[in-house]
């Protein structure tokens, strides 16, 4: 796995920011705690020195220089537990007693590195204080090595804590980033597979269902739909090619026939007209395919208008009633609800009705009665289109809506096999549910449109009460 990809992951970046914040917080608290600690230690040392000084001052007050020198050499026991600095100097800086040879320059910082005259003494850091008793200068100092050590270990602990915390946070971030990268890579690979034509590839979804898993689940749902579409596109394309070849070859034959007739000095007119018919029907198939595609890809109800279905149905029956009559069938409007309002496109709906009627008239025998019924309630506007013809076997009822699907396998009857596909596309475009059932005998097509809900005018809230309480 590419490390750069892991490091650019959101989880790792968040962890890096968290680590930065932790380090900053550590530095801030460290500085505060450290200055507090060293101030406290210094105060303690200063207090000890002050106590010694008072004691020595008492001795000086009582016995003068000699007693003070005596006391100093007693205090300055070389085997004392904590090394300390003590020195007594004349006004001219000559040493009278103590364990340092020279008087440290006064007025300098209180911390100073000195070497005492004690046995085995090494240079060490001391906290110094200088006091003057008349012409005598007394220098007292406490060893700082202990407090320095304390301060140093405090810093070390702080540093160690910082390093450990940062490493832990970055580690967790790296881990999280890596695991999401693994999932994302799988997602990517699956999408690649699908786009390369593997319609069965799906993204693995982990049971913990984190954000990425939820997205993966959604992606799978979409892939499911997409694969369905891809497969149906493939089959449709094959069906189109197959169905277009039939009229095309018939047109070829007719044209060849026309040429032959011309050669023989016969009238080629009939053959040319036959070719023309075939090509016209070919054009019709193209139109229907384009129309279905157009309707299916359009979305929204931009151009839809509220319309009443009853006049449309009456129009259809007036138009096709006589046509049905001529072929020995009957088309009748049984009942028609005048308040069946829907939101729709009139031209599309007209084509839908024509296709349904045409479908019945081509596939039903002489004597068939075809009835239309329109009902409306709050839930739906329902259009029933029923006939007492041969019907459609239950297993085929869903498939007849597929483009080019025909009950007549030999494709001898007229029709492109697109009529019902177009009906379904138009119904779906209108948000209508289409359902085929057994009319005992015959076929019943039920189309349920969502009713057009007129926008109710907003009734203004009575303002009398609130206005009076306000006044």
């Amino acid at each position, binding site marked *: 796995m590419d490390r750069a990809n892991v490091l650019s992951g959101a989880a790792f970046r968040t962890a890096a920011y968290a680590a930065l914040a932790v380090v900053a917080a550590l530095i801030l608290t460290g500085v505060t705690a450290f200055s507090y600690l060293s101030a406290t230690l210094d105060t303690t040392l200063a207090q000890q020195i002050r106590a010694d000084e008072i004691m020595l001052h008492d001795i000086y007050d009582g016995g003068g220089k000699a007693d003070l020198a005596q006391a100093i050499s007693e205090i300055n026991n070389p085997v004392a537990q904590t090394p300390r600095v003590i020195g007594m100097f004349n006004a001219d800086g000559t040493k009278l007693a103590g364990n340092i040879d020279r008087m440290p320059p006064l007025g300098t910082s209180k911390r100073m590195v000195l070497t005492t005259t004690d046995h085995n003494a090494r240079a060490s850091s001391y906290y110094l204080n200088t006091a003057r008793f008349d012409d005598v200068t007394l220098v007292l100092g406490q060893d700082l090595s202990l407090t320095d050590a304390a301060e140093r270990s405090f810093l070390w602990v702080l540093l160690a804590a910082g390093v450990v915390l940062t490493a832990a946070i970055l580690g967790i971030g790296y881990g999280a980033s890596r695991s999401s990268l693994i999932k994302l890579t799988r997602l990517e690979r699956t999408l690649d597979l699908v786009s390369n034509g593997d319609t069965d590839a799906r993204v693995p979804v982990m049971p913990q269902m984190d954000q990425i898993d939820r997205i993966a689940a959604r992606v799978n749902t979409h892939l499911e739909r997409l694969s369905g579409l891809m497969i149906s596109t493939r089959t449709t394309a094959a069906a189109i090619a197959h169905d277009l070849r039939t009229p095309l070859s018939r047109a070829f034959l007719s044209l060849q026939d026309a040429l032959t007739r011309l050669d023989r000095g016969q009238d080629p007119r009939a053959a040319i007209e036959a070719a023309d018919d075939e090509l016209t029907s070919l054009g*019709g198939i193209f139109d229907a395919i384009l129309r279905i595609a157009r309707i299916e890809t359009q979305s929204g109800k931009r151009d839809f208008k509220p319309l009443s279905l009853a006049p449309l149905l009456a129009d259809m029956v007036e138009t096709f009633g006589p046509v049905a009559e001529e072929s020995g069938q009957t088309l009748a409007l049984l009942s028609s609800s005048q308040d069946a309002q829907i939101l729709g496109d009139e031209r599309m709906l007209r084509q839908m009705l024509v296709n349904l009627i045409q479908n019945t008239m081509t596939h039903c025998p002489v004597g068939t009665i075809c009835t239309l019924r329109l009902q409306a309630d709050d839930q739906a506007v329902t259009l029933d289109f029923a006939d007492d013809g041969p019907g459609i076997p239950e297993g085929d009822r869903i498939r007849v809506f597929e483009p080019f699907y025909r009950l007549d396998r030999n494709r001898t009857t007229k029709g492109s096999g697109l009529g019902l596909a177009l009906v379904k596309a138009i119904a779906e475009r209108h948000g209508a549910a289409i359902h085929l059932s057994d009319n005992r005998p015959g076929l019943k097509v039920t189309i349920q449109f969502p009713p057009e809900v007129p926008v109710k005018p907003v009734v203004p809230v009575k303002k009398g009460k609130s206005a009076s309480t306000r006044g």
Partner: protein
Amino acid sequence: MKILLAEDDDRVAAFIVNGLSESGHSVERVADGRDALSYCLYNSADLAILDRMMPGMDGLSVLKALRAATNDVPVIFLTALGDVDERVEGLCAGADDYLAKPFHFSELQARVAALTRRRKEMADTTALEVHDLRLDLLARTASRKGRIIDLQSKEFVLLDVLMRNAGRVVTRTMLLEQVWDFTFEPGTTVVETHISRLRGKIDRPFDVPLLHTVRNTGYMMHGPR
């Protein structure tokens, strides 16, 4: 009749130019939308036939520019973009007719004929007459030789369209569009059936037939010649 044809396909253009010239029109052909626009603006054509997809400027833009310049030359779109929406779009932009490719030449010819005379007659006609048949558009009644003929509403519209175009061929597709508002092929004998019913009412009881079938093309109303 001076007709401008804007069509970028040479074979289709040659076919149309030949056909229209044979019917006695003088045809000027251009292959570019911009040429079509400038021709219409600087010459007085009686009719323009525009393709929609052309180099330079598409037909729809040409039409919009013409109408914006208050040029009201009749325009027929002749295009492969034959879908309902495209058709509506074209007509809304001010086209007078819309014919989708592929088409039969007779279809184009009938529409050209219908358009070139429509302008003059349209307007405020309240009654149409062909020989002794009279259609009262206000009372919505038909009568022949003084006898009232009872017509269904579709039959009335059908007769209206036919009589407005008296003396000219009205194709089956034109009838489907103008009478039934079908912009698709209904695949049944709608037109034939209704024409035959109409004949039964306006022609059969009388001695002179007025509604004639033009073979392979459509129908024509005319009195005895």
